């Protein structure tokens, strides 16, 4: 028997949702400062309007649903899944008011793509977008990469036991420090330290490449936020092609890889345990999958003959591959070139890379390499069981921060999530085919959306059907939250309708 949710459940959900909205309000004030600094009148007003709307909703929810009760698992998961939808709508307000979007749906697509660190974009005339709106597009990637709830946990919600439930709901099942709030703050510390270093590196490179100092540092900050959080937005419509710079590409590759590494690994590197890099299962698998997928892409590119020089082939092939594997989505080729100039084999290599993703507890999306490692270990264990004598005791272990013995529970979880991702990639592909796009292009774009990558082969544009836009929004949302909180929300809605 399904139990109908109680009023108290709704109150608790509403109260914490209100708190997260108030947290978002503070982030909306940062573009206001940018707008004031660059004397942008109307963009500043756009953000003030968004802040006021967010405050009104936040205060009403906090007031109407005031409670001192803590969250349970179900409520925590629902708060997370709903807060991402609410953030999408509230974050879309200033962008919609900018007049650079065809419809509010396009703006919601943009903000979901930003928060989920995907990087697919529907903005029009990006090259004339104001600094403040552009900054907001990149800031939402930074917020989404850390996790919307992490922002609220770090600054607005003082320690309470429900914090961990929301933390898990946001697809972060690994605690770096014993306390979730301290974990959230550590993630911010790492991100902000890298932010300063990355912005400086990109800013100086920009100046050396002939950009004005203001633009160089503005672009540096934006590119860092999108690269470290494996997002993929850029301040100019040409994506990374705008810079025409090898040094820019090298720096962004380093930042993308840093973003794809587990925050727990960052913690160990920071605390002096550098050997962990070489011992960790994730590092080894990431290296192996990069090599395999790059080999596939490189063979394909050699067949096409588009890049006759080895260095050029490496530069183009490796950049798109790392961008896809880390889930960033930066491109140094035009989207249609994937279809027109690359062949099916090279595109398939990129699709594999996108589908695998980076490390768990990082800012990447997709299946994630730890799960791939666990599945392979389980397969190896089963093979051993068949091949060795029945009496043999088989124990499979791997190193992930500490020595971990392979048990059935993590294997089951890894397989389930992998299956969900494969289903999600397939679902988007089917919808793409339904709307008349070829199979390979549909698969490419669907994998890119569901794995929160952002590489595009040209399907994503303002003229694509609304149904496909909604599908990609759903894929980005489900892919970023890794399904569980969304399944709980669906179950909650079903209980509200059918429950007794």
């Amino acid at each position, binding site marked *: 028997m399904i139990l109908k949710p109680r009023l108290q459940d709704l109150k608790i959900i509403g109260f914490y949702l209100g708190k997260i909205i108030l947290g978002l309000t503070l982030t909306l004030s940062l573009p206001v400062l940018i707008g004031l600094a660059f004397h*942008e*009148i*109307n963009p500043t*007003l*756009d953000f*003030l*309007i968004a802040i*006021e*709307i967010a*405050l*009104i909703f936040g*205060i*009403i929810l906090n*007031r109407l649903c005031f409670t001192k009760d803590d969250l349970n698992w179900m409520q925590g998961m629902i708060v997370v899944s709903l807060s991402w939808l609410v953030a999408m709508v509230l974050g879309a307000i200033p962008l919609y*008011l900018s007049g650079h979007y065809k419809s509010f749906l396009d703006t919601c697509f943009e903000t979901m793509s930003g928060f989920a660190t995907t990087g697919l974009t529907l903005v029009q005339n990006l*090259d*004339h*977008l*104001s*600094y403040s709106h552009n900054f907001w597009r990149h800031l939402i990637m930074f917020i989404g990469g850390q996790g919307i709830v992490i922002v609220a946990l770090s600054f607005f919600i003082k320690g309470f036991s429900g914090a961990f439930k929301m933390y898990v709901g946001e697809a972060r099942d690994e605690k770096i420090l014993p306390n979730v709030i301290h974990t959230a703050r550590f993630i911010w510390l790492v991100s902000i330290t890298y932010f300063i270093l990355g912005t400086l590196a990109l800013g100086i490179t920009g100046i050396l*490449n*002939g*950009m*004005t100092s203001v*633009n160089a540092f503005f672009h540096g900050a934006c590119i860092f936020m999108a690269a470290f959080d494996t997002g993929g937005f850029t301040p*100019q*419509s*040409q994506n990374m*092609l*705008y*810079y*025409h710079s*090898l040094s820019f*590409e090298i720096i962004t590759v380093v930042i993308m890889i840093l973003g794809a590494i587990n925050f727990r690994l960052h913690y160990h590197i920071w605390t002096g345990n550098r050997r962990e890099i070489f011992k960790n299962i994730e590092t080894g698998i990431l290296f192996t999958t990069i090599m395999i997928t790059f080999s596939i892409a490189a063979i394909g590119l050699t067949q096409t003959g*588009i*890049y*006759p*020089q080895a*260095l*050029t*082939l490496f*530069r*183009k092939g490796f950049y798109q591959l790392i961008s896809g594997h880390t889930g960033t989505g930066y491109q*140094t*080729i*035009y989207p*249609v*070139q994937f279809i*027109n*100039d690359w062949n099916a084999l090279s595109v398939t290599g990129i699709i594999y890379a996108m589908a695998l993703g980076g490390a768990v507890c990082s800012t990447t999306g997709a299946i994630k390499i730890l799960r791939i490692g666990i599945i392979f270990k389980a397969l190896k264990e089963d093979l051993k069981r068949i091949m060795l004598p029945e009496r043999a005791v088989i124990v499979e272990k791997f190193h992930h921060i500490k020595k971990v013995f392979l048990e059935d529970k993590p294997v089951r979880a890894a397989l389930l999530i992998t299956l969900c991702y494969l289903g999600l990639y397939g679902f988007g592909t089917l919808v793409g085919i339904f709307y008349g796009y070829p199979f390979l292009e549909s698969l490419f774009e669907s994998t890119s959306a569901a794995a929160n990558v952002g590489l595009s082969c040209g399907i994503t544009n303002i003229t694509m059907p609304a149904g496909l836009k909604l599908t990609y929004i759903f894929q980005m949302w489900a892919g970023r939250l890794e399904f569980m909180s969304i399944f709980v929300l669906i179950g909650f809605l079903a209980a509200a309708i059918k429950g007794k």
Partner: protein
Amino acid sequence: MIKNQKLKYRADSVERIVFSFLLFLSAIRSTLSAKQCYPLNAKIPFFLLLSFFIFHFSLTCFAQPISSTELINKAKQYDGKTVVYEGEVIGDVMKRGDYAWVNLNDDKNVLGVWIPRDLTKEILFTGNYKTKGDWIEITGIFQRACNQHGGDLDIHAQTIKKITPGRPLQEKLNPAKRDFAFILLVILIILFFACRLPLNVNRKR
């Protein structure tokens, strides 16, 4: 490399002249073959008109600007050819030694143009939120995957012509947005005090 490209460009120009000349010859031939059908006084204007159209067409068809969509979608077809492309200069003019990168937006896509630094002196405005950039036309060699620039799709320009000068864009306060922000502020203030009132009552109790 640059020298090779210049040679290629000249070769393209020679091709164009030879092509025009051949068309011109074919026009004479076709006019002469019309001798039996038309009297001589009717033949001369016919000949002049035909040769004018052929000349005009042969010279202008190469000078027509090609859109970025056409260039990107049919990159293989245009690879290594001299093309005319026009668009608004956006972002920064990034100077690199004797050359510079200029990104031109033709309202559909943006293409990177590698251009001799001296030619960029003409560019006074670059497009951004507060500026409409200069609209320029360039003639140069289109590359699908330029070996000199790490496989980028670009154009190596030889000539530049300013079509429309850019200008600063005046930003005016949008009164509708201002009024809406003010109304929301009033609602927010009312809400703020409305929320505080019952709390105070509770405290007194």
